[in-house]
């Protein structure tokens, strides 16, 4: 295989891991409340800025900015769910229109977050978060890998493993799964549904935030960083929007396909790649590549 192809694949896997993490965030929210979180990208952006704030202003050691960022954004996400979304969903009479209202609320959140960051003059210029370690790149055959790249892949694996363990083995995780499968039954068994919803949102937000900290050194921090949410959406769709491992596979697939299109078709077509992928996958397999047979929605 040519070095061009190998480098493209390697780069694609790294980017793909980030898309996967953000996609996980979107899917957790969707599974918990049926809402597409349009503020997902902005949560990533806030994560990036928080990481920078923690590192450069608070002087925290690099490894600590992750829990710091995760905690703060967890609170943001949980608060949004508790204060805004429960109010919006409150007097739900007509299922469909409430869903739309909730989605618009997430759109409002995205504008709020972007707006408040833009007001701070510090953010006018493009900024960069230093990578977790900068040293000579690592060579695997003809492929060049930066330390940050490896950190991203390792972090992604660690997070996914932690999530899997959380959902499979802990009470809280199982309770979350139960609530997303059937809220009424969950309430009947004594699971505090509202708290679960808050937790899901907080968790999803924290995931997005951490992705931001991982991504920032590669990508640069600007208030408009959030556009990456489109790539995460594509990754989530490939994965079927219901399965967490699907997100991961979807993200990596998307990252690699993007690079392949860039190398073998044209750079101009790169921006088209995610949308083509979405349309093709949904046309051929509406339930995504990993969701198994299409299942009827619970009524």
């Amino acid at each position, binding site marked *: 295989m040519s070095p061009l192809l190998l480098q493209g694949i390697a780069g694609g896997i790294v980017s793909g891991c980030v898309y996967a993490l953000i996609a996980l965030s979107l899917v957790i929210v*969707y599974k918990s409340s049926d809402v*597409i979180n*349009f503020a997902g990208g902005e949560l990533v952006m806030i994560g990036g800025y928080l990481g920078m704030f923690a590192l450069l202003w608070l002087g925290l050691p690099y490894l600590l900015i992750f829990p710091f960022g995760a905690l703060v954004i967890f609170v943001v996400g949980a608060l949004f769910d508790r204060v*805004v979304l429960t*109010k*919006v*969903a*409150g*007097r739900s009479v*007509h299922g*469909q*229109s*409430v*869903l*739309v*209202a*909730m*989605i*618009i*609320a997430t*759109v*409002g*959140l*995205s*504008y*709020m*977050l*972007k*707006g*408040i960051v*833009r*007001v701070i003059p510090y953010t006018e210029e493009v900024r960069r978060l230093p990578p977790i370690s900068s040293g000579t790149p690592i060579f695997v055959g003809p492929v060049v890998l930066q330390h940050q790249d490896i950190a991203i892949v390792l972090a992604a694996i660690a997070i996914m493993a932690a999530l899997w363990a959380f959902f499979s083995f802990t009470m809280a995780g199982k309770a979350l799964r139960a609530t997303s499968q059937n809220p009424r039954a969950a309430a009947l068994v004594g699971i505090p549904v509202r708290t679960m919803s808050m937790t899901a949102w907080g968790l999803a937000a924290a995931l997005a935030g951490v992705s931001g900290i991982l991504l920032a050194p590669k990508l640069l921090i600007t208030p408009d960083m959030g556009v990456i949410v*489109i790539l995460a*959406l*594509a990754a989530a*769709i490939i994965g079927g*929007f219901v399965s967490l491992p699907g997100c991961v596979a979807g993200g990596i697939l998307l990252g690699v396909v993007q690079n392949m299109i860039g190398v073998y078709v044209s750079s*101009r077509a790169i*921006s*088209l790649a*995610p*949308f*083509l992928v*979405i*349309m093709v996958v*949904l*046309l051929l397999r*509406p*339930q*995504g590549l990993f969701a198994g047979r299409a299942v009827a*929605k619970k*009524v």
Partner: protein
Amino acid sequence: MYGAPPLRRLSLLLLLIAAGFALPLVLPQYFLYLGNFLMTFAVLALGLDLLLGWAGQFAFAHIAFFGIGVYATALLQARLGIPFIFGMPMAAMLAGFIGLLIGLPATRLRTVYLALATFAFAEAAQWVFNSWDKVTGGPDGLRIAAPDVFGYKLGTDPTAFPVVTIILAIMIAAAMYLTTSKFGRAMCAIRDSEHVAAASGINVRGTKAWAFAISAVYAGVAGGMYTLFQSFVNPDVFSFHQIVLLLSMIVVGGLGSLPGVLIGVGLLGLLPEIMRTSMRGLLVWQEFVYGVILILAMMFMPRGIWGFVRAWRGQ
């Protein structure tokens, strides 16, 4: 609620048309421009509401059909010399046809996937507008020659205003008839429950596909309206941001209600103007304020302003 629309409502439309002829005589061009813009958006929003609010289909390809309407109308005039009076309906039919093509496979998808597939289509369409330089002018944009209708040269805000108003009135009337017809009832049934609708003998797939097509026709017409008073278009106009704006307008106004949609367009369309004049020194805060307004609107009026008004009136 069903049956032909009351004469009272139709007469309001005549008032609208009268205003369309009277206002250009008194208002400065700038306000006429705002008016033209809002009216075009109103037609756009009506189309989206038919699909989203009445048929319950979460589809966001709308802005692509708007683009098709604009480029097609402008190009038919510029390249083939076809006058607006024929060009716009042709462009609208083209948009409708593509809408039908999208609608057919889309009927298989359920909510989230439908939303995302149609959103992907809209983004792909924008990519095409941007890359197909030879036809659309690409990122440099396309200059729109002043169209003429029955010998009157339009292209300026005062001259276009009455025509835009007439088209809006026609589209509102069409929407009124549609929503109170058997087809409208079918759409509502599908929105409320597809299973029940199918069980009562409604052709679910067909109705959905036609809803897509009709909503796309509305978008195409709005595209034609755009060419009446704008002299330039470029792909930036057809971005994800506009879809979000449209969606906000109809949700804040009131999904599934004609007055609601018009209120939503008026309010959110004029909001930037209001912010522009009242927030002189604080322009940077506009985005934040906009976000807060959306959130507050959803928290306290999740059924939109019109839904709120109706609940208050005790309906």
